[in-house]
């Protein structure tokens, strides 16, 4: 029953959630609402599980002074500091956790990590963006045109340049994106049905 019970639950609730979409009746809607609230609670609990897992895995490494233990120590201390200050003092504007830890430390560090992308993109553009085939040429030309069209200076070259870039985004790009989106949606439906029907069981784990 260790595997069968979760599969039965998945099947019953999965089929119900598909059917309820097509039955606009208050009883069915209310029941679907309750199940959606359960989903929110379960997802919220996954944070608790994830936090406990972080502490367990990194705690073990710290205990036996494993590889990169100083980094794990920083992670655990940072995690505990945010958790404790947030629980005690709250996370609203004016609180220590928000003003000192989140706004003054986390945001600048996170934004810096993201900003370094610009440097690596420029370096990669110089070293790796080589036009070796006609497809690469097409990609390079489009990239240059779109990058140029996304900044105001392009209007000095041709007044309609931003509109031309808009056309590239809304016609050739959108056509390709629609194909990808439809393909991905069909794949998601197929995977969802396989999970509901018990054909896809990887979510149950190996035990």
């Amino acid at each position, binding site marked *: 029953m260790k595997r069968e019970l979760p599969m039965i639950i998945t099947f019953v609730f999965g089929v119900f959630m598909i059917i309820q979409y097509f039955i606009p009746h208050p009883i069915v809607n209310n029941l679907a609402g309750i199940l959606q609230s359960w989903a929110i609670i379960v997802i919220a609990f996954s944070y608790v599980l994830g936090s406990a897992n972080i502490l367990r895995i990194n705690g073990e490494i710290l205990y036996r002074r494993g590889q990169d233990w100083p980094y794990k120590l920083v992670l655990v201390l940072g995690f505990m500091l945010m958790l404790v200050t947030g629980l005690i003092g709250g996370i609203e504007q004016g609180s220590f956790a928000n003003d000192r830890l*989140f706004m003054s430390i986390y945001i600048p560090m996170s934004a810096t990590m993201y900003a370094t992308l610009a440097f690596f993109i420029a370096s990669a553009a110089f070293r790796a963006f080589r036009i070796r085939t006609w497809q690469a040429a097409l990609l390079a030309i489009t990239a240059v045109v779109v990058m140029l069209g996304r900044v105001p200076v392009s209007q000095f070259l041709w007044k309609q340049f931003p509109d031309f870039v808009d056309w590239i985004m809304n016609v050739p790009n959108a056509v390709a994106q629609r194909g990808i989106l439809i393909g991905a949606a069909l794949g998601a439906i197929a995977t969802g049905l396989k999970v509901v029907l018990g054909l896809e069981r990887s979510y149950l784990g190996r035990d």
Partner: protein
Amino acid sequence: MSRFLSRFEKLDRRWIFLLIALAVTLPLFVDLGMSPSSTPPVRDFYNQIERLPERSLVLCSFDYDPGGKAELSPMAYAVLRHLMSKNCRVVVITLWSTGPGLVEEVVNDVCRDEFHRQYGLDYCYLGFKEGREAVMVGMGRSIRETFPRDHYQTPIGQLPIMSDVQNYSSFPLLVNISSGYPGTKEYVQYVESRFAIPLISGASAVSVPEYAAYYTSGQLRGLLTGITGAAEYETLINRKGLAMIAMGGQTMGHLIIIFFILAGNLVYFVNRRGKAR
């Protein structure tokens, strides 16, 4: 010449880093006068808000983290300024766990400090709720059940602005500022057509190629693309903000990258021809 090209091909990447650093920082101190003209998706975004009657209640979902702050915060500021100047009321939420502090700062800066609006009457901030798509769909059933308290733990029932709010049908417009998942794509898939609420979006430039398909299909009634879209929008609302200031750096950064793409390929072709001989 060939020696120069050979050396140029092996250019130390720290020179490239230095050039990019100068290109994006210097324009912050020197105004290059970069003012973009507005494109149709941005004009549509602007018009959706412009058409709202006074005191309309608008739902804003600002879903981004510190990584997206530089691109999306200017949009959030501009949207709230536009809504406040139209005397609209706003309910703000965030679905990103690292978003609450960022969004609270924007809401307080604009609604409280800039426009001196009253919390709970003219605007409210419901904060963060975990659950992603489940929260989006849950709000279609009941916003009170999905967000029983606001960010400051005040029960929703005590906020006058929320007195008539049931679900999405209580709002004439949903504004989403999105840095990825969960965000615009999920609002289109789970909310826009199912609950029949007009949706406009501002997204990071890297996400927009995907969202363009939703704009052309009419599922998105307006679309802002990255910092350029925010700058175009600021031009339309006639309020110079962070996006307009950043346009100089953005322009120079793009030009430097274009230069390196062209220079890299020029050197590659010349060297290849030399080797073939």
